[in-house]
């Protein structure tokens, strides 16, 4: 539970979602769900962020944008794919402009299903991702001892 002592910041990017999951991610920040209780702050700046929350599937145009934002986030970082579109492409999988889930471009640590993902699932997903973030941090600090299952995760 050490990770709850820290205050991870999230950055949210709408890849090509229908807005449904987006507004649910935002709803998590508002009084009813209030993930700020866990010290989580939504930031607009990738360089401040620890958790990258992506909604919607990858398409040809935002491939580069997502890669760019991902690269700008300092290590350690985790990626949370929120919603069916982000995890597999969902109903839009067959569209010509959609490449599929986020894991085609960047490694994803937590998959949150749901169409649209409910705020409760998003909270679950983000809290899960904090554990992984902590593991990654330990791993980074002392690469020998901090064995973790996240190494080499796709």
């Amino acid at each position: 539970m050490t990770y709850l002592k820290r205050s991870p910041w999230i950055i949210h990017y709408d890849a090509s979602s229908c807005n449904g999951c987006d507004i649910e991610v935002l709803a998590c920040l508002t009084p009813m769900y209030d993930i700020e209780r866990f010290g989580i702050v939504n930031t607009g700046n990738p360089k401040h962020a620890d958790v990258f929350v992506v909604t919607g599937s990858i398409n040809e145009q935002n491939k580069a944008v997502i890669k760019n934002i991902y690269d700008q986030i300092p290590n350690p970082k985790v990626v949370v794919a929120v919603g069916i579109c982000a995890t597999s492409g969902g109903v839009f999988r067959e569209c010509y402009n959609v490449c599929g889930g986020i894991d085609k471009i960047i490694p994803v640590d937590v998959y949150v299903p749901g169409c649209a993902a409910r705020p409760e699932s998003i909270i679950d997903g983000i809290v899960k991702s904090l554990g992984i973030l902590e593991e990654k941090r330990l791993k980074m600090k002392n690469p020998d001892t901090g064995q973790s299952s996240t190494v080499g995760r796709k």
Partner: protein
Amino acid sequence: MKIEEQTTIVIGVEHLIGRVEQFRKGGYRLVQLNCSKIGEQFEINYCFEREYRFENIRIVIDFETEVPSISGMYWGAFVYENEMHDLYGVAVKGMNIDFQGNFIRTSVQYPFRNPSFQGEGPCQEK
């Protein structure tokens, strides 16, 4: 029960500008432009409305035919014309703001001409 009467008049490309001019003078607003591919032809609808009266004019053209832009009369038409160009490859002549095919950037050129699909059939692993 029909919600509203919708009239569609098919005209030739050469009469397009004249007809649109009439709508413009009559105080109609532009609802939308849209293109559909029917067989080996494009069908372009120009919809206008005034006081909830909906009117539609349609031109049917070949793939190569150039369409005159109506953005001189309706400034806001550029979004639809650029979209038509980007998705179907309709050549529109004389747009006020021409994005040169960069309004909606797509992975495939003129994707709606021959829609392609990816992905797999219903039963597959992964």
